[in-house]
């Protein structure tokens, strides 16, 4: 259940990347992957650090995914900038 929470949180935040100039590596799909992966990693790390089982969830479980999602998005964005991806704003 915790994994479902993190994934949903990551995907929810990803939806708001449409407001950012699209310089993500791989575009909107790259951002999707970055958000999902970041959410899962930070969620899992925080859950392990809190010594909570995968089935135990509360509000904090959802919040654990936020920093990871943002970091994941930032990494994919930085990769795009580094690769010289030009901003795309529809």
């Amino acid at each position, binding site marked *: 259940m915790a994994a*479902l929470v993190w*994934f*949903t949180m990551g*995907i929810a935040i990803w*939806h*708001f990347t449409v407001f950012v100039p*699209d310089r993500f590596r791989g575009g909107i799909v790259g951002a999707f992957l970055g958000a999902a992966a970041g959410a899962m990693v930070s969620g899992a790390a925080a859950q392990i650090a809190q010594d909570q089982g995968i089935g135990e969830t*509360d509000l904090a479980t959802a919040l654990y995914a936020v920093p990871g999602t943002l970091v994941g998005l930032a990494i994919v964005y930085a990769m795009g900038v580094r690769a010289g991806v030009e901003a795309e704003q529809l």
Partner: protein
Amino acid sequence: MANRRRNLFILSFVAALVVASVVVILSKPTVLGLDLEGGTELIYQGRPTPQNPEIQGDDMDRAIEIIRKRTDALGVAEPEISRIGEDSIRVGLPNVENAEQAIERVGQTAQLYLYDWEPNVIPNPALTNVSEGEASFPRYYDAVKLASQQEPECFEDECTTSGPSYYLFDEQTKEWIAGPAEDEADLLAQTDVADGKQPPNTEIITVPQGTLVVKKEGEGDQTAPEDPNAAQWFVIRDRPSLSGDEIKDPKQEYDPTTNEPNVTFDFTDSGREEFADVTQEIAQRGLQNAPPGVGGDVELASQYSGHFAIVLDDEIKSRPIINFVENPSGIDGRTGAQISGIGQLDDAQDLAEILQIGALPIDLTLISQSTVSATLGEEALDQGLKAGIVGLILVCLFLIAYYRFLGVVAVLGLGLYGVFLFALIKLIPITMTLPGIAGLILTIGVAADSNIIIFERIKEEVRAGRSLGSAVAAGYRKGIATIIDANVITLITAFILFALATAGVKGFAFVLGIGTIASLFTAVLFTQAFLGIFGRSRYVRSPALFGASEEQRVRWRFDFTRASRIFFSMSGVILLIGAISFATLQLNLGLDFESGSRVSVGLERDATVEEVRTALEGAGIEDAEITEASNDQLGPNVFEIDSQIEPDEVQRVQPALDEAFGIVPNGFNSTTVGPTFGEQVAESAIQAIIFSLLVICAYVAFRFEPKYAVPVIIALVHDILITGGVYSLTGREVTSGTVAAFLTILGYSMYDTIIVFDRVRENVPRLPRATFSQIVNRSMSEVLTRSLITGLSSVFLVTVLLIFGGTTLKDFAFAMMVGIASGTYSSIFIASPVLTHWKEREPAYRKRRERIQEQMGRVPAFPEENVIARLEGEPEPTAEERPAEPEPAEPARAATEPEPPERAPEPSPVPGVVPAPPGPVAPPPGPAERPQPVGAPSDREPRPGRPEGEPDGGDGQAEAERPELSEASAAALRRVREQQAGRRQRKRKKHGRPR
């Protein structure tokens, strides 16, 4: 003429099929599932035995054969016995009278072993006043504890267990909780604990291989015969002398001396020798143990003679004495042997029958049990049929109202579809279950949608000025690829569901698959042939009869791409709420996933919740949640009882309540799911979802291009998460039916997305100068009406299910309602914008966008507003600017048709220029109304009549001359015209000077 012959042939074929179907319908019975007919469903999981350490396919087949013989012996008519997955067996017993007896008989392993008693029994050290062979344990815990202290051994490799056995006891009361099990995980799975953790205040005891704890013969509390705490026990060394494989011809007879019922049997050749050896050994040992002078006195000798124990499934059935005076050389076994002291005649008959049929080659554990009374089954069938009929009528009325003559044809097609499908259901035969009826009702929507896709095409062609006959031909030709793509998706979903899902959902999947194939036949072949013959009639020549008047009533003109920000934000917020809900409220997983029991019972006498609770506590069921319920079929005193009891314990509920309050006829319904089955259901659901996603996406990548598959996945993930979030927020129970509905949602959402993408694919080669967002906007505006109509017809069906369906159908309907809303939304506002964002990054589309931006100062929402590029006399797009497009539907013609030459623009006069407001507005002119480009071949078909993929100059002249332009475009157009006029004037002045 050839077409007419073909159509007549199809109609004749259909007529013949109708006759055949009617014959089948009238002559064949409908096979109803247990949930509609009433009965008991048992699901067993096979476990290895020492003789079969690994379960093979043959073992499962043999087990099914033995179970079938046992159910036949019970007198059950038409039992349904089938294998589920690798190691489970489903047993359906329609209208079985004694469910308890059936459950006990069907799953009994019936492993018979014969033991030389005295050398193998380990006496209770606390009992010193009885002989060692009689020193049993009054408490199960003490027997198991002593057994656990023995050394592991497996004498001559003849142990009856493959390893140690595990037991769970209450640490305080020492009462038995679970076991024996082959490992700790299995042991804990027998309890109600979550996460496989050992319950607090309990003790796990491990009995090593080679030692058994067996129940003393004739033991057990009569009120709770299955309660191990109420019996006496022996501890024995597991060294059997013979097994059940070495006996034959068991029969129920009567003991000639006592006239009590017994079971006699013979031995096989090898068994006879073994039996002779072991009885001789027992006799000789008795003689050695007897004091001198006993010889000759049979009565006295019996006190010193040894015993021979017959043990069936860890319960001693008989312990006859081998009297050394009567049989000094043992018993040679030629006259067979007998099991006496069995008790009642019924018990003896049952035992004989069990031994006749033989032992199961594997251990079977009951992991799920469900009992539905015939009354509730009948009610469910009524509800399902009512929902189906009302749904069908509503869809028919809607189709006729919207499509008029075409609607009548569609209704004819739906009627035929219903006849064919019903005949197929009877012919195959398909066992109809409640989920199957849900699938049936949903296929009505699928069948209707095939017609909707084609009819929308026909209407487009009619509005474009084609004759009705050619519009019908073109409509079917253009719509068929879309329909096949969309139906293949549905078939894939149905196939994966059928292959991976659990029994109830299989029925749903099978009906969905068969229905989809039947709908392709009736909705495409029949209606096309019918329209081909009757559509040319002079009575149906008015476009209004086709619901296609000259002006389209609703035409969508909306910048979907730009609006995607708003919709993305909406989805983001909804998912944020969903994530928080998942975290805090979680999902209310039903019995199928969590395990436990649910009983619905109608009582004859008034009772309160507390009185029911007291009655249940008397039967040892203490954790029950009891609520009063209402069900007209079960009378005025209906209770629902939820409890965490095991499948084989639920049978204690019925006698307890019957004794206390009386149960109305057919008033007991129960569903019990063990933890193992819950895990299987959850696993199969996850597998089905993942496989569906992968296979469907592979199909989309193959039919379109790989980039089209990714937005499809994102949209599906979006749908699943939103539907899950709604379930979490509303606290509705998630059952295996919900999973089936989830998977159908995947198919539905895919279906919808495919329709949109198909139009995008078709428009890409037609608009070689347009940006991808413009192509998507144009495509969406063309198919939105169809999406809404399809959604609406599906909503009719789902609403009917919600109103008329019983609990199971409502469960489907709720998930479908949320899914349809989410699926329609995501295909328009998630999948297409994601595809747009991704495709716009391709160099060719980037260049197009830059060019239009540079020339117009902005990128219009629709390609027909790209006026400036043409006015500036832009050349045709270069090869670099042309992206690698997916294959159009008819690529050959598209590739060979020449593009019309460019020409100087002759835009419409300014009064024809109208702004393009967002939302539905007055329609732009149909393709036929557009002026043809100068230089186009004079014999060329009007544009809409051309096959798909045929270029029309792209957003070239035809687009340029469209009268509806935004104000900005019109202003830009005026500026360019003024500049051009100025340039022409200057040229004339320059060259027109007198020579």
